[in-house]
Structures are given as structure tokens and as C-alpha cells.
């Protein structure tokens, strides 16, 4: 596979010359071929993109972004998704997945910027985005209405600093948001201003009125453990992937689950596996059944798979700089993307990694660098 990839790159380089090869969106008469997968990436020419592909290796679209993207929110039905700018970005692009085009550009309003994640309501009408109210140094969710051309129709507070990932529970009304706890200022992009005093939280909100339904924190000695990425499994169980901002060598947990009104429950990982994660988990996803939790640790080149209900380790796999992870239509199976390029299927029960081969001349699957997140349309 390796030499094939290189040959293809050489061929492309020869064909392309100075000009970029246009990649035309192709009609997606392909519903039978399984779901469409979406991710942001950086191509080998240094251009940020958002791309769609299928697990059979076919590229559906490969669109330019104005700057680096982060995560996607898929609307129910599979026709629409939104990619958010990486924090502290100011754009979100609505994608028409059938046409493979951008249908709307959303700009964050003055005094707010996007934090990189969002979620649609069950009708696909309202879009909720994590945002920073940087004057006040507090997190909010911006609410955008598809029926009004994605006009921003309001916001609700997240009751924390630095909200990052946002998910919706199966009840359709309860939002769960990871307040990472880290204070930033867009004038100092990505500089962390409060690491010594940060206090992350997991907050549940009623999306209809913004009411806070619950707020959960880690024990005080773990206050530098940033709750950044979450996924929702069956029975409203939340899987949590964390990043530690304290001293190297501290044996802190990096994965946890939460459900209902209980305390946040850290998952006890085997010491070697935990150390291998290098204090940094990048993504969380549940499989189709909602029971198996995948956690990526890109700095350790590690993915691990857990039974979220009893905290049991099922398997782990090595993917170089593997961060993006999303469920396939098969129980116990995920796709994972590499920051060094490439996507693979992983069987969570065995940890078996099967790289996906690109078909045709498309380069989405075997060049460039995938960004932090993958999504299933």
C-alpha cells in the first residue's frame, strides 16, 4: 500500500505541474455503499479542506476552507453537515452533502468566536455551537436557525469557561457540554490564561429554555484535567476524553464516563496504556450500539476501546497521530484518521486495523494530514 501511495503521488505531481487538479464533486448515487464520512484536513499543498469519503475508498468531495477547520455537526437525515472553524475561528460552513458544495457561510457575531464544535437538533433545524464570549470570559452556545438562512437567533450560557465539545442526548432536548475550563482571549490566540486556577465541568442544559439541568466537576486535585471531548452512548451515558495541563508524570486518569446525577467516574486504564496516552486524549466516539467507547490519544499514537458500562478495556490499536474517530454502521467498528494521512477501519473487539485504500485518482485518503475529528453523516 505504501509504495502504491507514493507512486500515485508522483503521478499526480507530474500531472498537476503548477496548477492544482480540480476535484469535481460527483453525484452521490451511492447510498447503498454505506454512510458518508467527513473530516477536516490539511493537504500537501498547505491548503485546509473539508472532505467527504466513503468506506469503500471513494472521495465524495474535497472543498477548500478559508482557514483551519475543526469538527463537524451532521444534521439528521444525512443531507447537511456543518464544519466549524478551529478555535478561535469566526466561520462555520454549511455543507450540502448531496451536491458536495457549501450552501451557507455562518460568521460568528462581534464579541463571539467559535470554539470548534456544535450539534443539530433532531429536526435538523436548529444548530447549536460552542462559542466564547471573550469580554466576559464565559462560554455560550450560539443558536442558528436553518429556516432563517442560519441566522443567529439567540444564545444560552454554558455555565463555564472554554466550552469545547457539545452533544445532544437521545431525548432530543438535553444538551451536554464539556466546559474545558481554559480561559483564552482571541487577541492572544490559543494562549492559555488560567491554567493554575482552571476548573472544568460537564454541564447538562435544556435546549428549549437554556435551563441548567446538572453540573459536574472532577475532584479538586484534578482541576487541571480539561474535559474537552465527549460522546453520548446508550442510556444517556456520556464518554469523556480529557487532557491534563499539569506536570508530566502525574498518574491522572484521562478517560471517564458520566450518567444521570452520579459523580463523574474515571476509567482505570492499565498503567502502561495510560502512560502511553501522554496526558492527551483527542476524540471520543461510541460505536453504533452505544456501548463501546473509542478514545483516541494522538500524541501516543494510540486508540483504545472500552466497554463504557463496566469500564473494561476491550482492545487498543496503534495509529500514528491518530485522532479522528467515528462509528461505522457495523457494531463494534470505527473509522480512525491519521494526522500523517490515511484512514483505517478498526475492529474494537480485536484492535485489528485495516487501512482503507483510495479508489481512482483522488488523494483525500492517502495524502495530507487529517485534522482532529471525523464525523459520520
Amino acid at each position, binding site marked *: 500500500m505504501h509504495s502504491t501511495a507514493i507512486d500515485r503521488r508522483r503521478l499526480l505531481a507530474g500531472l498537476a505541474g503548477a496548477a492544482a487538479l480540480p476535484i469535481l464533486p460527483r453525484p452521490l448515487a451511492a447510498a447503498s455503499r454505506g454512510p458518508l464520512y467527513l473530516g477536516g484536513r490539511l493537504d500537501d499543498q498547505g491548503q485546509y479542506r473539508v472532505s467527504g469519503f466513503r468506506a469503500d475508498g471513494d472521495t465524495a468531495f474535497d472543498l477548500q476552507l478559508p482557514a483551519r477547520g475543526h469538527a463537524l455537526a451532521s444534521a439528521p437525515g444525512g443531507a447537511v453537515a456543518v464544519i466549524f472553524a478551529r478555535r478561535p475561528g469566526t466561520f462555520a460552513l454549511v455543507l450540502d452533502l448531496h451536491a458536495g458544495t457549501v450552501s451557507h457561510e455562518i460568521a460568528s457575531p462581534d464579541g463571539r468566536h467559535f470554539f470548534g464544535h456544535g450539534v443539530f437538533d433532531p429536526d435538523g433545524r436548529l444548530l447549536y455551537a460552542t462559542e466564547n464570549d471573550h469580554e466576559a470570559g464565559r462560554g455560550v452556545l450560539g443558536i442558528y436557525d436553518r429556516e432563517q438562512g442560519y441566522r443567529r437567533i439567540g444564545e444560552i450560557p454554558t455555565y463555564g469557561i472554554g466550552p469545547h465539545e457539545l452533544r445532544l442526548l437521545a431525548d432530543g432536548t438535553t444538551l451536554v457540554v464539556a466546559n474545558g475550563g481554559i480561559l483564552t482571549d482571541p487577541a492572544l490566540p490559543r494562549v492559555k490564561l488560567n491554567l493554575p486556577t482552571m476548573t472544568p465541568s460537564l454541564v447538562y442544559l435544556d435546549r428549549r429554555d437554556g435551563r441548567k439541568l446538572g453540573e459536574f466537576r472532577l475532584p479538586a486535585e484534578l482541576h487541571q484535567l480539561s474535559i474537552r471531548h465527549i460522546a453520548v452512548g446508550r442510556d444517556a451515558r456520556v464518554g469523556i476524553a480529557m487532557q491534563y495541563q499539569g506536570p508530566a508524570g502525574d498518574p491522572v486518569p484521562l478517560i471517564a464516563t458520566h450518567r444521570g446525577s452520579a459523580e463523574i467516574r474515571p476509567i482505570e486504564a492499565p498503567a502502561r496504556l495510560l502512560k502511553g496516552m501522554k496526558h492527551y486524549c483527542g476524540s471520543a466516539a461510541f460505536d453504533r450500539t452505544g456501548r463501546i467507547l473509542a478514545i483516541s490519544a494522538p500524541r501516543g499514537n494510540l486508540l483504545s476501546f472500552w466497554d463504557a458500562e463496566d469500564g473494561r478495556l476491550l482492545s487498543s490499536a496503534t495509529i500514528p497521530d491518530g485522532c479522528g474517530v467515528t462509528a461505522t454502521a457495523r457494531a463494534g467498528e470505527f473509522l480512525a484518521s491519521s494526522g500523517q*494521512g490515511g484512514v483505517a477501519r478498526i475492529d474494537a473487539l480485536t484492535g485489528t486495523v485495516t487501512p482503507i485504500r483510495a479508489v481512482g485518482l483522488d488523494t483525500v485518503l492517502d495524502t495530507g494530514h487529517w485534522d482532529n475529528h471525523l464525523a459520520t453523516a
Partner: protein
Amino acid sequence: MRRLALLASLAVTALILRTGPAVMASEASPVPESAYTTVTGNLIEHHVLPGYRRLADTAAGFADDAMAYCGGKPAAIEAARRSFDATMDAWMRAEHLRFGPIELLMRGYRFHFWPEGRGKLKAALAELLEDGDLEALSAENFPNASIVVQGLPAAELLLFGDEPADPATDLGKRGCAVLVAIAGNLRDMAANVLAAWQDGEQGFARTMTRPGEDNPYYETDRDAILMFFKSLDRALQLIADVKLNPVLGPTIDRARPGYAESQPSGRAMANIAAGLAAAEGLYLGDGGAGFSSLATRYGNDAKLDPLLRKAFGVTRQTAASIALPLEQAVLDPVERAKLETLLAQVRALRQIVRTRLAPAIDIAAGFNALDGD
């Protein structure tokens, strides 16, 4: 401008030529682990320990001079300011090192917490000055005070700011008590950091040079040297993204002098020069073997070492050519143009370090092409 264009075009070329291939399996290492061990050991001996020794010495001098001034010798303020300056300079040459003992007990933050966001320092310092409790300032209690008031920026405000520490006035006496507490605490922290690196069997120097499965920090020599590589990257990033770009703003009309570092003493440019010297020291090795020795011996990028040496030299020259304090320079058309050149050069340097040095010395795999979130 020609130099700038040269550097920028080199960096772009570097990016195009060196962006990693799509692989799902890591390739064999062309650099033996023993070469990493040598450089790590050398950098500890020639870069880290001298840096922390300098910090410990200057902080001890500062504690003495603050005590002398506040003990009733108003004329000694100049000596206290000079030794503050020397301590700040020593910190700026060690600031990029964020692993090991400096990371424990939040020492790094306590030494110099900046940017601290929204005037938190002034508010916390005002509160401490109003509170008459002397117990809070004791050597035992002060390490538990708010982190923002423990560090060099708080001492700087008291020595150069609007509410100076002054042994001759009642309000100033309280400021003096705080200043003496800060300086004593900095002296102790710097001494503790140096000791923790050197402490024989338990010392962090030993931890770093003897990686292994039982080592709680580093499993391999590559893990250890990666800390230095990140420090090199961090030094350049701090200068470009925190110390220069936010102050420059997008245009001269939207410059933000209020975002400059070390405003009370006006030494923002000196901080930048010290940071550049530290980065260059890591690369060249400060008299021992640094990353340069790996770049010349391994990998297939023969032009890389001459390019980096030249780029460091040119960038330092540009920094030295700024004729005004940073807060004024960003508003001055002539000096601003030089600062914009400096910013482009530091960014080009960082680009070369990330996209050419990392693969040439085979540590790209541990150093993500895209930063996390």
C-alpha cells in the same frame, strides 16, 4: 526586505518539500538512540544547568538588593532595579524549559505568570497591599498566595509601577514588605529548581538521561530529546504569537501597545532578544552538542544546518536593530516595519524547525503536524 523574502521563500519551499508522506506505519530510524542520549546530556550540562544557575544567582542577588533597599536605603532602588532586570533576563533565557522541576508545584507559573489576562495582577496586588496581614507574607505562607502576585511581574510593578515599594512612606512600606516576600520566594524557588535537577540519584538530570520502562517521565531517549525540541519550538512560538503579533496588531492604527510584556520596566524587546538567544543556544548547543550536531550528522538535508545558523543570525540582528521600546516601536512607521520583518523571520525560523529539522533528526513522529485541541 530582501533577506525577509529569502527566508520566507525558503520556508515555503521547506514546507512543500518536506510535508510528510501519508503512511500508516512508522519508518525505521536513521538516528541511533545513543545520538539522542548524547545531545540530551549535553543540553542539560550546557543549556539547562547554566540557565538555572544563572536564575538562582540573579534571584539571590535580587533578594539581597530588595532587602537592602527596603531595609531603609532609598538610594538603593537602582541596585534593586538592576538586579530585578538581571533576574528577568535569566528567566527569559529559561522560560522555554517547561519540563522537570520547574513544572512541579506550579513553579513556572509562580515565577512568571504572563499573560495573566484582564488586569488580574493589579487587582490581586492591590488586595495584598490593602490587607495588613504580615503573616501572609512569611516565607512559609507566601508560596500559597495567589499565583499572580508571587512572580516577577508583581515585583516589577512594585519597582517600576505607579505604587512603588518605598521604605520612606507608609503605603510604600507595605509594598516593600511584599517586594521582599516576592524576591525571597523567587530566590528559594530558583535554588530548589537547580537543586532538583542536580540532586544526584534523584536529580532530574539523571531521570532525563536514563529513560526506560520504569522511568515515570521518559521511556526512550527520543522521548527525552523531544522535550528539548518542544522547548525550541515553544521559544519561537512565544516570541511570534504572544510577545510580538498581538502587540503589532493587524495595522499601525490597530496596534496594541497594551499587550506588550514587561511594560513597567519597558524591557519587552530585551525579553525577545533573550528568548531568541535561548532558542539559538538550544540549536547550537551553548558550547556542547545541540540539535545542530544531529542535523549535520543525520538525515539528508545538507543545506539545513547552514540555513538555520544563518536564519538565527539574521533574526537576532533584526531584533537588535529595534531602536525603541516595543510599546513605542509598534506605533512608529520605521520601527514597525522592522518588527514586521522580525515577526516574519521568527515565523520562518519556526517553520524550518518544524518542517525540516524535525524530520531530518527523525522526531517528526512525536511532534504532530497539527497541534491538538
